[in-house]
Each structure stands twice: as C-alpha cells, then as structure tokens.
C-alpha cells in the first residue's frame, strides 16, 4: 500500500519523459497554481479551525453529546462512540483522538472499538470539506450540500452500528 504514491508519481513522470513533455516546466507551472489555491483557502481554514477549536474547548461538544445520548441509547448506539460521531463531521484530528482514546480504554476489538473503527473508515470531515471547497472559490450559497453530506454521515453512523453488530 505504501508503494502506491511513488508508483503513481513515477508513472506520471515517466509518461511525461517518453512523450517529451518539458516536465519540470510543467511542474513549476502547476505548482504556482497550487500556491495560488493555497493562498485562497488560508482565510477559510483559519476561520473554521478556530471555530471548531472553540466548540471543543468551551464544552459545547460535551453538551451536545449529553443532549443526544438518550436518543443514541434508544437507538442502541454504545455511549462511548457518541462524542466521536458528534465531532467527526467537523474535525478529523479531534475524532481521531477520540478513536485512539476508545482503543486505549476498551481495546480495538471491543464493540465500541469496532464500531468507532468502521465509523472512522466510512466517513469524512463533511463540514470542513464543504467549507474549504466552497470557500476556496468564494461561494457562499452552498445550497443543500451540507444537508446532504450530513445525511450521508448519519447513514454511515447507523450502518456502522448495526452492520458491525450484525456482521462482526
């Protein structure tokens, strides 16, 4: 698996050399474009990361977990995975920290450990992705993107809990 990236890069460069493309010139041209894109997302990412950090540090995430845990209980979700499910759409590093915490407290082969693993593997940081992609081109009216993304996350959560219980 670790070989995928070197192979891909190697193949691209090699194809370029065979086709006599000025590869380094092309690389620089693209890299400059990348620099411009990066420049465009700096404000978006800074604003978003600060807001997410504040949600965590102020205790809002904890409150949300407390608020949804009765519902989660009714649906048969283990309470250990609730913080991860709440944090997953907004913060990749935050939810990974919770995942590792679950591994250390209950073990990766416990039911919460397995469900959390499936959840981590089958979802992305939805809110972050939506904000970054649209922020990079200054689109403020994202229409139903976030709603659809969160619905998909919820679907993944429900599937993670029930399919893990049923299949593992």
């Amino acid at each position, binding site marked *: 698996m670790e070989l*995928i*990236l070197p192979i*891909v*890069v190697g193949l*691209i*460069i090699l*194809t*370029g050399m065979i086709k006599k493309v000025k*590869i380094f010139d092309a*690389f*620089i041209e*693209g*890299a400059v*474009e*990348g*620099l411009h894109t*990066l420049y465009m997302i700096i404000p978006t*990412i*800074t604003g978003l*990361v*600060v807001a997410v*950090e*504040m*949600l*965590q*540090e*102020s205790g809002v995430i904890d409150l949300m977990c407390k608020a949804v845990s009765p519902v989660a209980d009714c649906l048969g979700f283990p309470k250990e995975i609730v913080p991860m499910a709440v944090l997953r759409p907004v913060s990749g590093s935050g939810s990974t920290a919770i995942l*590792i915490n679950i591994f250390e407290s209950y073990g*990766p*082969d416990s039911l919460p*450990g397995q469900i959390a*693993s499936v959840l981590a*593997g*089958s*979802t*992305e940081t939805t809110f972050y992705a*939506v904000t*970054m*992609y*649209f922020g990079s*081109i*200054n*689109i*403020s009216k994202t229409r*139903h*993107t*976030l*709603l*659809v*993304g969160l619905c*998909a*996350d919820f*679907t*993944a959560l429900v*599937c*993670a809990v029930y*399919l*893990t219980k049923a*299949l*593992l």
Partner: protein
Amino acid sequence: MTNYAWGFMIVISILVGIFTGNTDGISQGLMTGAEKAGKLLITLFGVMVFWSGIMKVAQKSGVTNFLAKILSPFLKKLFPDVDRDSEAFQSICMNISANLMGVGNAATPFGLKAMREMQKKNLRKDTATDSMVIFVVMNTASLQLIPATIGYLRQSYGSKSAFDIIPVVILCSAIALTVALVLGKTFNRLGKGKR
C-alpha cells in the same frame, strides 16, 4: 449557510463558556485554534504545491486524459454539465482516482482545482452549481477502495483482527455514498423546478 453556521459556532461557544464558568476554555480555544490552523496550513503547503505541480505534468503527458476516458462513462452521468474535454472534468477524474486509491492528501489539490475550473463556467458566482454540489458531496463521503489506514491503526493498538472490519467499512461507505448521490441529485432536480 456558512455565514450563519460560523457565527453560530463562535457565539454559542462563548455563551456556553461563560455560563459554565469555563472562560479559560474559550480564550484558550481562540489562541490554540489560530495556532492549529497555521500548523494545518503548513502541512498542506508542501502537499498543495507538489501535487498541483504533478497534476500539471500528468495533464501535459496525457495521463489525466487517459483516466478521464476510463472514468467518463460513470462520471458523465453525475456531472452532465461538465464538458468531458475540459480541465474541470480532468481535475474531477484525478480527484476521484486519488480518493479511490486512498491518498486523500493528494485528492485535495485536485479537488480545489476542479472547483476553480467549474467556477469559471458558473453564471452566478456566489451560488453552487448542481455539479459542484455533487462533487463536494462525493468528497464528504469516503470513496476509498481499500480503507487500509484504519486497519493499520487498529493493528498498532494491539488488535487481533485488525483488518476484519474492512468489508464492513466498504459496505457502510457504499451505502452512505449512494444515499449522498441520490439525495444530492433529488435536491438538484427539485431546485430546478423552483427556478
């Protein structure tokens, strides 16, 4: 949407912090948040510059065209208003290929480029097009063919069956992605009726 969500996140954090007496938390959140953003951007910096460069080499060597040909029967249904020969379509192909191979870091620069190319054809510059919605929704779902990273992580924490979960992960992702695409397409169609 983003404006309200962002304002809401900050205001609610400050209010909750004050009412629960956690004033240290909120002032710390402000500082460490900005710091973390800086660190994240520095991590992204090299990746963005390098992969955007590689993307251009791939484009000029015809690699992206080749990928676009393979993926286009599937993708032209999802993105009917993106021209198949355009740079936007090629960037979408590169983004999706990188996602499928599980190299999310490389997928981001391609994705941002795809958005920029789609924006060129967008008539209302402040509003997302149907294709943009579908594209971003695909990027919020997990597209990996083999979600190996989570397996390795489990292994390093002493799991005896680290990779047993992989079929379940794939099944969950596939169901979630289907829901995302069906909902996205449905809402797109409803939006058209209104206009």
